[in-house]
């Protein structure tokens, strides 16, 4: 019959249990970093907490599909961004305006205009932007742009990792990042020099 021999089954189960514990510990060690990204992908702290919990719930259930030695943080973020896409994302408003795109240096130019060219040499010039304005500007970005900017700028993922997490080509990561950052700076400039 198909019943496994107890003397071979025992060690296999024990080895699997060890792998599972190791996986769970490694995943939990990344929770703070995962939360940081999650927090900027959704509007509220509660949503971020729910999203992270759902992510870990799913990760712990499907731990066997993780390949040891690969980027676990990227693997967790892939689950998280998919869950975020599934839940209510369609409900959230998606801006349909076609913003006038300014250059990369838009914010720098505006601040140089307002405070003088030399002011750009001061490290503290960016600190004129309040924490709220940065958080608001980030959350006002269209989702596709925001996801990419958050993964690369907050999560510090490479273009290649971000492409894998979002399941889009690297070229798309680069263009979304580029446009997303331009929009971000445009929004910050509106506030900084108003």
């Amino acid at each position, binding site marked *: 019959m198909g019943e496994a021999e107890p003397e071979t089954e025992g060690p296999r189960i024990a080895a699997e*249990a060890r792998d*599972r*514990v190791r996986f*769970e510990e490694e995943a*939990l060690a990344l*929770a*703070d970093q995962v*939360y*940081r990204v999650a*927090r*900027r992908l959704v509007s509220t*702290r509660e949503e971020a*907490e729910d999203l*992270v*919990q759902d992510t*870990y*719930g799913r990760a*712990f*259930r499907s731990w066997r599909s993780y390949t040891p030695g690969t980027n676990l943080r990227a693997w967790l973020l892939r689950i998280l961004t998919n869950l975020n896409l599934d839940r209510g994302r369609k409900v959230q408003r998606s801006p349909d305006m076609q913003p006038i795109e300014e*250059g*990369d*240096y838009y*914010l*720098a*130019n505006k*601040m*140089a205009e307002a405070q003088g*060219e030399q002011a*750009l*040499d001061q*490290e503290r*010039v*960016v*600190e004129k*932007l309040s*924490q709220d304005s*940065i*958080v608001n500007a*980030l959350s006002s970005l269209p989702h596709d742009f925001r996801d990419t900017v958050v993964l*690369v*700028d*907050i999560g*510090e993922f*490479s*273009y290649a990792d971000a492409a894998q997490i979002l399941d889009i080509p690297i070229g798309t990561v680069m263009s979304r*990042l*580029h446009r997303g*950052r331009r929009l*971000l*700076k445009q929004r910050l400039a509106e506030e900084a020099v108003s």
Partner: protein
Amino acid sequence: MSHGPCDACEELLQGYLDRELTDAEVAEAESHLGSCDYCRRRYRFEASLRQYVQTTAAERMPAGLMEKLTQLRSAGA
């Protein structure tokens, strides 16, 4: 002297900031930064902005979340 919008360099300097350029492009970016005061100022600004966004937008995990996550473990703590 070089002054005014240096549009062609903006994209190159973004890639330079992200450390995603090839060696040849890095050399090109650094050579340009060495000679263009306008871009050098803006590069420094972009670098400090990037750093500032990263620190201001980072929010630590709320107390209690780790406990909830640990409870989701099936292997037991």
